[in-house]
Each structure stands twice: as C-alpha cells, then as structure tokens.
C-alpha cells in the first residue's frame, strides 16, 4: 500500500509529461475544465522547483493548455527561465511558449533583452534560429531598438539558415522600430543577390512587404527585380516579384511598358497556375496604369481574358474563383472585353459554390443591359428564394439593388417593374439588414420618376396594409418609413385616400421614428381629403373625418416616444381648431362650410404644397464661405500664458461691468453697490475710463465676431465695406445649380402586378418597341442647359408623354455644388489606420549607385552638420556593439536627432532642390558608418570562403535535382528515392534511433486506436504538391 503511494506520488510529481497531460484531458472529457485546473495547480508546484527539466516539462504542458484557451501569462517569468537554459531542448520549449503567449506589450520582455542577445550570438546556429523564430512573434519596440544591430550582424552570418531568418526578422524590427530601416536597407538590398536562394527569396519577401505599403520608395529597385524576374526559376520568388511589380506599375508607367513583354512570355510558357495567375494580375495592373498610349495593349487584354476564361472553365473550383476575381479587375477598365464572356459569368451564378457565386455577382453589374436586366434580376430573385444563409441572401438583395440602381437607373426601362421587384424583395427577405437601402430606393424612385408615382402610392398602400412586423424583421420595417412618406407626399395620386388614412391610423407596434412619419403623413392625407370635401361642399364629411382622426390620434398621443407625442399633439390641436370652427356652423345653419374653416383647410393644404427635390449629401458645399469669415481665426482670443497678461485680461473683464455703469453716468449707482470688495478699476479717473472705453469700441468695431447694437447699414445694404461683416443670411451668395436632365425612358407601361409579367411583356414587345426606342434616343440627347430648372424638366417630360407612349423619366437632378461628384469620397483619409506601422516606414531610401556617393563626397563635411535621423546613432552602436554603458548619453543624442529629422523633413517640403541635396547628404551619412561592419563581413566571408566553395557547389547541383523532382513529383515513389539519397548521406547515424522511436510511437498509436478510430485515419495526402515547390 505504502509503496504504491510513494510510486503514485512519484509519478504525479515527475512523470506527468505532455503526453500524460493530453491523455488525461482526453480521459476526462466530461469535466475537462476541472481536470485542467487541477493540472495547472500541479504545474504551479513544478514551476516552484529548482530543477530546470521539471520547469521545462511544466512549460511544455502550459503551451498545450494555452492552445485550449487558458491564460498562461502568469507563468511568464518561468518561461523566461526556461528560455535562458543552456540546453537547446529547453530553450526551444521556452521560446515556443513565449511565442505563443508573450505580446509586444508584455513588461516581462524587458528582462529578456540580454538573454536573447546572447542566444542570437550563440555558436550553435539553431540556438540563434530558435531565438529568431520566437522573437518574430513577440518583438517589442524596445527589443527592436536594442537588438536591431545584433540582427543586422546576423544578416551577414556565414550560415545561410541564419541569414535567411535574420532577413525576415528585420521586417519585424522595421515595423516596431522604423528608424532601423534606413541603416539596414543597404544590407537588405545586398541580400537580393545573395548566393543562397533561400536568403534571396527572404529578402524579396521583406522588400515586397515593405513596398506594398509605400511603393514609391522602392521604385529605384525595379531594375534589380527585373533582372531577378528574368533569370530566376524559383516560382515562389517569381510570384512575389511579380506581385511587387503590380504594386509599382501604377507609379511608373514606363516600367509597365517594359514589363508587358516578359510577363506575356511567362504567361505563355509557365505551367504553374499560380505563377500564371499572378502574371495575369500584374498585366492587368499594368494595363490599368497605362490605359492609353499602348499600341498593342488590346492584344494583351485579349490574352488575359482568354487565359482567365480557361481558368474559369476549369473544373478546379479554386481556379474558377481566382479567374472571376481577376475578371472583376479587368471589368473596371475594359468592360467590353469582359462582356464578351457574359455567358460564362452568368453560368457561374448557378454554381454550387457560394464563394464562386459571390464573385460572379461582383461581375454582374458590368454584364447588365437594358435588354437583359429583367431576366437577370428574375434569376437573382429565384436564387434568393432557394438560397440558404442570410448572409448570401442579403448579398443577393444588395446586388439586385446595385445593378438596377447603377448610374441613375440607366438600365431600368420600366419602373413599375422595379417597384414590384422592390416590394417582392421586401416580402422575400423579412430578416434582411438592408431595409434602409430598400427604403431609400423606394423614396428615390418615387421622387425622381414622377410618372410612376400613381403606381407607387397604390403599391405602398398595399405594403402598409400587408406588411407584418415580426421580431425577425428588425431592419426591414424601415420600408414602412418610406411607404408612409410616399403615400402622404403624393396623396393626390391615391385612388382611395381614406382607406390609406385608415391603414396609417391603425394602432401598431412600430419604432418611434416610423410612427412619427406616420403621424406627419396622416396630416398630409387629411389635408388632401379635407380639400376634396371642400370642393364637394361636404360638411358632414369633414366633420366625420375630424372626429375620426381625433379619436384615432389618441393612440399616438400616448406614445412613449417624445417625437411621436409631439407630432400627434400638434396634429390634434390643428384638427381641433378646425373642428371648433366647423362646430359653429353645424348647429345653426344649413350645410355650408364656414369661411374660417375653409381658410384653415386651405392653409393646411398649402403647408404640404410644392415639390421636394432630392438633395445631394454634399449639398452643403454649395454654400460658399462668406467674405470676411475666417474659420481659422479665434472667436475669443486664447488666454495668454504669462501671468502679467492674464492679470490684465482679468482687468479687462472687470472693466466691462464698470464701463457699462460709467456710461449711464451714474456714479451714485456705483456707490450704491455696497459690496465689500471694491474693484481696482473703480479708482480710475473719468479720463482714463473714457480712454479705455474708446479703445474698446475701436476694438469692437474691428472685431467681426462682435455683435454690434448700433445700426450701421443705410438703405439697401449701402455701406458695402461693413456689409461683409454683418453676416446676414440673405447676403450669403448662392450659386446657381447646374441642372441636368437625362431622360431614361421606358418602353411600355404594363399594368400587371408581378414582376415576371413585365419581363414577358417586354419580350413580347421587343418587336413593337423600335418606334419607342427611336423616340427615346432623341429624348436622351436633349440635355438641358446648365441653368435649367426642375420645373422645366417636368414640363418637357409631360410634353414628350404627349408624343409617345407613357415613359418613365428619371429625374437625375440633385442639389449639387459645382465641381463635386457624388462618387467623391470624402473619407478617403479616414481609411488610413493611424496605428498602421507602415506609415512610419514611409521613409525615403537612397537607392543609388556608389558612384554618386563618391562624386558628392566633397559636400560631405557640410552636410554632416545637418546629420539627419538616427542613422548615425544606430550605425555607431553597430560598430561597437559593446558600447552599452553610454546608453543614457546616446538617448539624449537620439532626441536631438529626432528634432533634427523633423526639421529636416520640413525643409524637404519647402524646396525640392534642397531636398535632393539633403538626400545626397543622407546617402553619405548612411553609407559611411555602415562601411565598418560590412568590412568585417567581408573579411569573415573571405575566411570562410574555403568552406563556402563546397556549399556553392552543392547549391549549383541542387537546382538540377530540383528540376528533376518537379517533374517526378506526380509519382510519389520516384521522388522518395531522391529524398532517401539525400537523407541517407546526412542522417545515416541517427537512423537506427529514429526507427526505434517510431516503433514506440506506433505502439502508442495502436493503444489509442481502440478508443477512437477516427483519429487514426491517415490524412491521405496522396495529391502531390501542385507545382511551386
């Protein structure tokens, strides 16, 4: 018994390794949380022990637990302990744990600086490698600053493995510590021509990442990349380079022209789909950037579209997806060439894969025409009925509206059809979040297409009647807002206004802002109905209407929404006023409506008369800034800083009151205020007071923000010198609007209800419509002159109505300021993420040849005085890595340097010539200090050159083998022969041990097999790696 206990104790304390933990968790599926918390307790105990192996084991377990979602940051200190172990095994576990749970804000990272530096400089390349891998996940700004030089030294290590990792690591350093970019860049550039392809690829990778965000700084590197592109066979690197060119071409069209040829060659020659695809992408980018001036660019476009068609037709869904993605890029600039493949894209709408359908939807807006719009929309509606998942349905809904509404309903020929579609969408998709969008469309169409209003009001009445508000339709009820507004505003078009009124008055559970609109439009309807009653001299009708309304509005009166309450109350008051007037007459005389009541009704009708015009969102810009209004000027002068002036301003304040008293000329009043504290200003002599008063008056008259009581304007705004100071609202000049009318017409008006019928009708009427088309064309041409008013536009539309079949005209007039287009995005800058580290990396890099440096070296001494940025600082520490103790002084230097760099930047902005000089100066500064470490590197390379010869030989052989492998990759067995050959030479010794290990491993597997068979299923990676590697 006792022995067992010892043994158990023993195991619990020492032998619960990661495997035991995993097994334990799997055995305690029911109470996993409890088991894990128990394990964490054990781990805490283990961490308290001195033995590093035990700690290491504990940390390994913690890493696993972290993956399951447990916070392990409390063990941070222990993780650092394990990281600092001299043994690789422990170190690796420690760094792994750190990379999983540390983050750049960890305070613990302060402790790690020296340890990581030691590891980076370790003799064992894997120690340094592990440290770099870990560091890449949690590097902080402080660590970047302190370790930048060590990592830079590693970039010229003799071991390609370390060089490669160090190069990648530098990118992370740049992100956290942008000052490192400038001094490190020459070295990074050097690595583009590194003998090791891995290092080369890493350098390309880093520069691509850098250039993606700030491409203009990397344009001078284009020749190097161009050379790499034409010589390299490494597909992975080629893809990166080609992607980089895609980012560079918009900045330099000449580059694009040069690229077209090699890229088209690659497109023709490569068998790797990934490379082909990226080539097409970049060619598209080139073609976009040089949209004109290329004689044979239509051939390139044709080639791209052709290849993309092959991709889209491929049975591989991935290629199909990417093909559509690239198509959408072409569509923006060359819509015609894409439209040729309409059939293919429309076919993709029916694909079983949602991602592909979405991509096809993106392309759809370029595919529609007046002829096929109805058909396409019908298909989309059909999809919506069938589709599962609200996200996709929402997307469909959005697309339907997008393609119909694009360029002011250019392709919509029949707006009754469109309204029917919108109503159908509402009925189809009660749970959509696009309710507001549909509401906007309804309003827009009703306002801008006058002819369709009659149809619209009736549709909206039906909608108001039938729409059921459910809990699910949390956004769709927005359409009621639009519907209510439309029936109210265009009440004249209603067939049965009273019925609509009753529908609106029906008590319903609706959000406040919609109820508010309801009440408002009830009054509009009432005004309409009352006017008709007036015309008919129907006194009892009005009385009945008033009573009915007063009764029903009570419901709104009690609303909890303040807006609804207010509106309902004022509506009630208005109607009651009318009712009392009516009541006077109903008692005594016969039938005639009292004149006062008539007046009230007419006034009410007047309230809602007049047309509402759509207002552009940026109409505010139309109002020019009045002369003399300076928005940057202080309204009140800011309080002065120094004590003396502040006291004087206080003095002024006191004076305000005193002077106002003094102007009354009543000294006794002053004495009468028997306050104990007498102000110092009271002791001023009358002359002084008078002088101050004069000065103040002058100041006031000069101050445009001061409201003056004295009437200065003569007749007819005569004193023009002062007029601009008196910002009368009427004085604000309002520029006339450029109004344009583009008639987009319909072919025929159908009277049928559902949207499909419009389609059938359209198809039937295609032959007959030629006549209409001619008319439409004519109409389209009649663009109104800039000063044309809306009313004119309406008149012209009614004229044309007389001539031709009823036509739907979109009124594209918007209240828009000159020079502003709707597509202007005002928040372009808002897209910038202020936290994006790449903004700090927007540093001009001097990428020039060494000749220029030597030529301009004469200027060096002069330029050195202005020594910009932290270059020097960093570089000096680079040359003497051990110069740590002087850190405090160097910090001061840094501050100075920062100031200098700021200064330097502003100077750059002012004069371009000075800027170029400065850059040359920078070059010298950046170039010289780096020279010392690179010299070291040179010597070290020459020392190790003997070793390197063998390596380079191997490297030369490798590509050949590589090629072979690529070919044979499809046949797995044959490739494995090569692998075995390679491995046998290297790892013959540990082979035996690995085998035994594997045996044990297999036993492990079979043990678990009995429990869960699913896990045992091999992953079955029979498909060979496709092409790249």
């Amino acid at each position, binding site marked *: 018994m*006792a*022995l067992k206990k*010892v043994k158990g104790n*023993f195991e619990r*304390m*020492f032998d619960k390794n990661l495997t035991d933990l*995993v097994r334990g968790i799997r055995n305690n599926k029911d109470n996993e949380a409890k088991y894990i918390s128990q394990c964490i307790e054990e781990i805490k105990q283990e961490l308290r022990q001195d*033995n590093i*192996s*035990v700690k290491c084991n504990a940390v390994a377990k913690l890493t*696993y637990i*972290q993956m399951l*979602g*447990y*916070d392990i940051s409390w063990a941070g200190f222990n993780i650092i302990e394990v990281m600092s172990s001299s*043994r*690789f*095994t422990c170190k690796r*576990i420690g760094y*792994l744990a750190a990379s999983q749970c540390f983050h*750049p804000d960890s305070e613990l990272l302060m402790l790690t600086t020296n340890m990581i530096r030691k590891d980076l400089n370790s003799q064992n390349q*894997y120690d340094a490698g592990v440290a770099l891998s870990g560091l*890449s*996940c949690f590097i902080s700004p402080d660590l970047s600053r302190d370790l930048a030089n060590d990592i830079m030294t590693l970039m010229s290590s003799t071991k390609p493995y370390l060089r*490669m*990792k160090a190069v990648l690591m530098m990118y*992370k350093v740049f992100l956290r510590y942008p000052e490192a970019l400038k001094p490190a860049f020459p070295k990074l550039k050097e690595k583009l021509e590194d003998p090791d392809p*891995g290092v080369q690829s890493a350098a390309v*990778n880093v520069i691509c*990442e850098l250039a*993606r965000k700030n491409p203009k700084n990397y344009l001078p590197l284009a020749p190097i990349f161009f050379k790499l592109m034409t010589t390299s066979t490494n597909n*992975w690197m080629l*893809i990166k380079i080609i992607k980089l060119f895609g980012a560079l071409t918009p900045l330099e069209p000449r580059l694009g022209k040069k690229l077209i040829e090699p890229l088209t060659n690659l497109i023709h020659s490569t068998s790797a789909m*990934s490379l082909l*695809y990226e080539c097409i992408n970049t060619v598209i980018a080139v073609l976009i950037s040089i949209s004109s001036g290329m004689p044979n660019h239509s051939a390139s476009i044709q080639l791209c579209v052709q290849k993309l068609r092959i991709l889209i037709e491929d049975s591989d869904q991935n290629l*199909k997806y*990417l093909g559509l993605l690239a198509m959408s890029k072409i569509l923006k600039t060359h819509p015609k060439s894409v439209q040729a493949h309409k059939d293919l894209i429309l076919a993709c709408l029916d694909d*079983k*894969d949602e*991602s*592909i359908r979405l991509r096809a939807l993106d392309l759809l807006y370029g595919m529609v025409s007046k002829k096929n719009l109805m058909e396409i929309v019908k298909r989309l509606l059909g999809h919506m009925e069938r589709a599962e998942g609200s996200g996709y349905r929402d997307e469909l809904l959005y697309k339907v509206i997008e393609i119909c509404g694009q360029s002011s309903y250019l392709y919509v020929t029949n707006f009754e059809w469109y309204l029917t579609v919108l109503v159908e969408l509402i009925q189809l998709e009660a749970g959509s979040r696009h309710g507001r969008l549909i509401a906007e469309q309804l309003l827009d169409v009703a306002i801008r297409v006058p002819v369709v209003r009659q149809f619209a009001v009736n549709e909206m009445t039906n909608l108001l009647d039938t729409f059921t508000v459910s809990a699910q339709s949390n956004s769709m009820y927005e359409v009621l807002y639009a519907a209510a507004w439309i029936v109210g505003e265009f009440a004249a078009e209603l067939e049965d206004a009273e019925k609509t009124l009753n529908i609106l008055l029906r008590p319903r559970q609706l959000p406040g802002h919609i109820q508010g609109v309801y009440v408002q439009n009830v009054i509009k309807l009432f005004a309409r109905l009352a006017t008709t009653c007036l015309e008919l001299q129907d006194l009892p009708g009005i009385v009945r209407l008033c009573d009915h309304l007063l009764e029903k509005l009570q419901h709104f009166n009690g609303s909890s929404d303040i807006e609804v309450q207010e509106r309902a109350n004022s509506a009630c008051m208005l109607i009651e006023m009318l009712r009392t007037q009516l009541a006077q007459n109903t008692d005594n005389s016969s039938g005639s409506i009292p004149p006062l009541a008539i007046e009230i009704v007419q006034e009410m009708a007047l309230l809602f008369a007049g047309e509402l015009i759509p207002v552009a969102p940026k109409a505010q810009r139309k109002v020019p800034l009045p002369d003399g209004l300076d928005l940057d000027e202080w309204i009140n002068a800011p309080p002065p800083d120094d004590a003396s002036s502040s006291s004087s301003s206080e003095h002024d304040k006191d004076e305000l009151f005193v002077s106002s008293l003094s102007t009354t000329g009543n000294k006794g009043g002053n004495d009468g205020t028997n306050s104990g504290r007498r102000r110092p200003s009271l002791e001023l002599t009358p002359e002084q007071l008078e002088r101050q008063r004069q000065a103040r008056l002058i100041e006031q008259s000069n101050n445009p923000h001061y409201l003056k009581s004295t009437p200065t304007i003569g007749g007819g705004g005569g004193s023009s010198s002062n007029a601009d100071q008196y910002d009368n609202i009427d004085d604000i000049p309002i520029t006339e609007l450029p109004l344009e009318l583009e008639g987009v017409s319909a072919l025929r008006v159908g009277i049928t209800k559902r949207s499909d019928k419009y389609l059938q009708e359209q198809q039937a009427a295609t032959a007959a419509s030629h006549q209409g088309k001619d008319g439409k064309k004519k109409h389209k041409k009649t663009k109104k002159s800039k000063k044309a008013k809306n009313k004119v536009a309406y008149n012209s539309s009614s004229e044309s109505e007389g001539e031709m079949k009823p036509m739907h005209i979109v009124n594209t007039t918007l209240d828009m300021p000159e020079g502003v287009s709707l597509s202007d995005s005002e928040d372009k800058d808002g897209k910038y993420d202020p936290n994006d580290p790449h903004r700090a990396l927007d540093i001009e890099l001097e990428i020039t040849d060494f000749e220029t440096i030597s030529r301009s070296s004469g200027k060096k001494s002069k330029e050195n005085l202005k020594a910009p940025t932290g270059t020097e600082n960093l570089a000096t520490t680079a040359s003497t890595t051990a110069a740590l103790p002087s850190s405090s002084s160097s910090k001061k230097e840094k501050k100075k340097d920062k100031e200098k760099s700021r200064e330097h930047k502003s100077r750059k902005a002012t004069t371009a010539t000075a800027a170029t000089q400065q850059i040359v100066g920078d070059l010298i500064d950046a170039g010289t200090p780096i020279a010392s470490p690179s010299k070291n590197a040179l010597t070290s390379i020459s020392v190790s050159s003997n070793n390197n010869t063998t390596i380079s030989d191997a490297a030369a052989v490798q590509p050949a083998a590589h090629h072979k492998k690529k070919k044979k990759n499809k046949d797995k067995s044959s490739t494995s022969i090569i*692998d075995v050959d390679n*491995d046998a030479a*290297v*790892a013959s010794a*540990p082979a035996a*041990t690995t085998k035994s290990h594997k045996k044990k491993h297999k036993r*492990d*597997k079979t043990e*678990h097999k009995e429990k869960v068979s*699913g*896990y045992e*299923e091999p*992953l079955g*990676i029979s498909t060979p*790696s*496709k*092409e*790249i*590697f």
Partner: protein
Amino acid sequence: MIKAILVFNNHGKPRLSKFYQYFDESLQQQIIKETFQLVSKRDDNVCNFLEGGSLIGGSDYKLIYRHYATLYFVFCVDSSESELGILDLIQVFVETLDKCFENVCELDLIFHADAVHHILSELVMGGMVLQTNMNDIMARIEEQNKLVKQEAGISAAPARAVSAVKSMNIPQQIKDIKLPDLPQAIKDLKF
C-alpha cells in the same frame, strides 16, 4: 503576410494554433470557433478560399484552407500572398508532417503538438514564408532532433534522474511513511 495558422478537426477541436499577431486567449478561441463554423459548412468539392471572418482581418484577409480526412488546415493571409501559393504551402506542411510522423494522423498532432510547432517554425517565421523546399525543411528538422537527442542521451537523463532523487527528499519521505524495508522500495522504483 500570414496572420494565423489554425489546425482543427472535424468537430472544431483545436490541434494547432499559431497567431502571428497578438490576440488574447479568449479571442483566439473565438477566432478558432468562427473559422471552424465558416469552414466546416463547406462541401469538399468547393473552392478553398473564403473571405475572412469578422474577427480576424476583414476584407483584405482571406482564409485559405485544405481539408485532410479529419483535419482542417487553415491559413489566414492578406492580399500580399498568392492564393495558390499558400495552398501549395499547406500541402508542403502536411507532407512534411507526414514524413516526420510516418503516415501522419490526427493522433500525432494531438500528442506531439510541440513537435508540430517546431516543424511549422521551419516553414513560416513571424508570418512570413521561410522555406518551401521540403528537403531543406527536413534537413533542418532532423539536425535539430539530433541535437535534442544528443542532449537527452548524454547529460539530460542522468541529470534529470539525479535531480529527481534530490528534490524528492527521500529520507524525509521515508521518515514520513515509515517504510519497513527501504532498500527494497528503492529497487522497485527502477528509475
């Protein structure tokens, strides 16, 4: 840049999670959950690209995944990576696992999560692709394994045993439990 690499099984249990941008643990779990929900409802014969989830990335990010038997391998990448390239990288990753574990299956990933991490760190470093050549990757991994074995063989095991005995404080333990036959007990332990 690769933002995250996730491996989970058909039930959404995480088998490997590597984030190259810091998220706290609960958010990590949410991301895994969300990703699983996005990926798992897709058929096997649809394309391998997905628009990023709401938690991770946004519009610039894509989820690129492959489904092998019981496991999903998901890479979350931004637009600087080639989609097809990442698909191949996943293939290389899995093939490397297959070589290291000999016919890899989910159990290998469950019980050797740390080893999988070490393998992954030879492919991807800090969100950037480090090495794509499988032979090179294998050579690195084997060299490191050799290093670990050396350490374990020469110094670690005895040191560990000794320290275990030391820290166990056997005399005290024995006193506590009052064993009659101390030497026999130690013999039975066999460590």
